[in-house]
């Protein structure tokens, strides 16, 4: 493996008595497509939440590109190039699909209050982003929904848009929380094929939580398994899938 771009050291997060994370150490190599699996409530989303500054960890450290990032605010983590998506899509209900996707790219010229009134300063960037957004939406069959309000969409479409609005940023590392949940099988495979291509062609890194192992396992290089807030197993997809501890954890619940 190449050097890690994201490292988590002895990370813990307690909610009162609930030890959602209880001392997890793992690393995500640069240009990796890494899976994170585990039964319901094993702490996967909590790990993402702590890594992205959504929660402050109870204990432990998070390192990104050689820099310690635990304790930073979510917006600061995002701007460093570490982008996450939500398990339950958190789109902005009063914005159209296009606007939801256009919102995420960071450091837009027209987002500054003093340049905002002067269209010519940001018009080109805005159009460029719109073309990029439409291309991504069309790629996943959502081209006809650009003008729709997100409240008019099906759950599967919301999920895809949640992922697409992450992918339109220029981040280096993406933490995707169950991107295939509820999505049609072929679309899910297209999405993972696209993710692999982004890794191969643009050198991006992906860390992906997924319950649909039949999709995930065909695309990831390496998998971590969480159970009750601890790392249960790790390895190549086939190693993990044949690990008795993993089978036990999944069936034993």
């Amino acid at each position, binding site marked *: 493996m190449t050097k890690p771009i994201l490292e988590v050291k002895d990370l813990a997060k307690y909610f009162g008595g609930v030890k959602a994370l209880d001392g997890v150490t793992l690393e995500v190599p640069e240009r990796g497509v890494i899976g994170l699996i585990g039964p319901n409530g094993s702490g996967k989303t909590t790990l993402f939440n702590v890594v992205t500054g*959504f929660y402050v960890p109870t204990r432990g450290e998070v390192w990104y590109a050689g820099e310690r990032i635990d304790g930073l605010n979510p917006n600061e983590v995002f701007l460093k190039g570490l982008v996450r998506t939500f398990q339950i899509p958190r789109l902005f209900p009063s914005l159209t699909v296009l606007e939801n996707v256009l*919102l995420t790219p960071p450091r837009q010229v027209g987002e500054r209050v003093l340049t905002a009134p002067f269209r010519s300063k940001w018009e080109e960037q805005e159009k460029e982003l719109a073309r990029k957004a439409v291309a991504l939406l069309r790629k996943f069959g959502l081209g006809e929904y650009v003008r729709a309000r997100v409240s008019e969409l099906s759950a599967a479409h919301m999920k895809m848009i949640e992922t697409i609005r992450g992918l339109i940023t220029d981040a280096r590392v993406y933490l995707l929380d169950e991107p295939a949940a509820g999505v049609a099988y072929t679309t899910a495979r297209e999405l993972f094929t696209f993710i692999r291509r982004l890794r191969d062609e643009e050198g991006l890194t992906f860390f992906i939580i997924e319950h649909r192992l039949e999709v995930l396992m065909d695309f990831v290089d390496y998998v971590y398994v969480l159970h009750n807030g601890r790392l249960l197993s790790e390895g190549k997809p086939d190693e993990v899938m044949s690990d008795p501890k993993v089978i036990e954890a999944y069936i034993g619940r």
Partner: protein
Amino acid sequence: MLPSFDAFGFLVSWGTFLGIYAILAVSLNLEVGLTGMANFGKVAFYGIGAYLAASLSVYAVLAVYHVAAAPYTTEGIIALGKYGGASPALDLGIFAASLVLGFIIAGCVGYLLTYPTLRVGPAFLGITLLAFGELLRIFLLNYQPLGASKGLSGIPHPFLWIPDPVLRERLYVLVVLGFLAVTLWFAERITNSPFGRVLKAVRDDEVAALCMGKHVPRVKATVLFIGSGMAGVAGVLLAFYMSSVNPNMFVPAVTFNIWAMVILGGMGNNKGAVVGAAIITFVDRILTFITPNLGITIITPDYVRWMIVGILIVLVLMFMPGGLVPEKPIKTPAWEAVESLEKESKEGGSGGDEA
């Protein structure tokens, strides 16, 4: 029926109040309609602007003409009457300086006051601002250098050197409407921009906006700076129009009046805020013009106006929940890019999506 109804005079007076209140309503719409910050202390920033203009102008005039008396004494008021209008350059200079300082000082107070509360939560912000407005008013009621409960009067009208009072008023309404035009232009421009998109995202779900890299506290503080600055300008315009200010002009009811305008016109729509302000100030002006002629003394115009405003809001919201001019999607050049892409793919024959 109405023996002495001066229609043009009415229009000028309505236009002035419309302009001042529409600036307030547009600024409140930026805060609450677009960004979701419930500012219940709007009147404080209006009051800051008005008192800044009042104190700056009366103290400046007295200082320039070496009058030792304080502006709130009889001697001071007489001196202000004597020297106001003596120098066009001084009157206009004071007016311009008040507008600039009114914007900056009201804006900075808004920024400073709200920055610490932003982290605590949206409900806190509204209550803090409401309390601040009342504290400010109570302070003014008791602070002698600003005239305490009597306030300050003899504020020199910027056009006082024009002998004809009617012409003076007509010029002034143009200035006020000019400021409204600039305010509306600016509000519309920032609404229909990526910045406006961020505001609506913060309003919808500020935690999600934070996770998408937006510096939410800074965005809110920026909007409060602008909104409070605009309210400060409205206050300056009011002070010079009324030529006097006192603490009871800045009661919480003023804030709720501005809220009524935004709700009636349409939350989230700047033009709606102007429409709301136009309607409610129209009701106000009509009542003030008509009641003296009717000779009614039992029911005050104030009482009737709140009833009318209440009925108007209930009726409009029953039939048009979004207000008279509902919120519209943000218009940016992104849509032009989308349209040209859609045209291309139609001409290219392959219908829309590339599978």
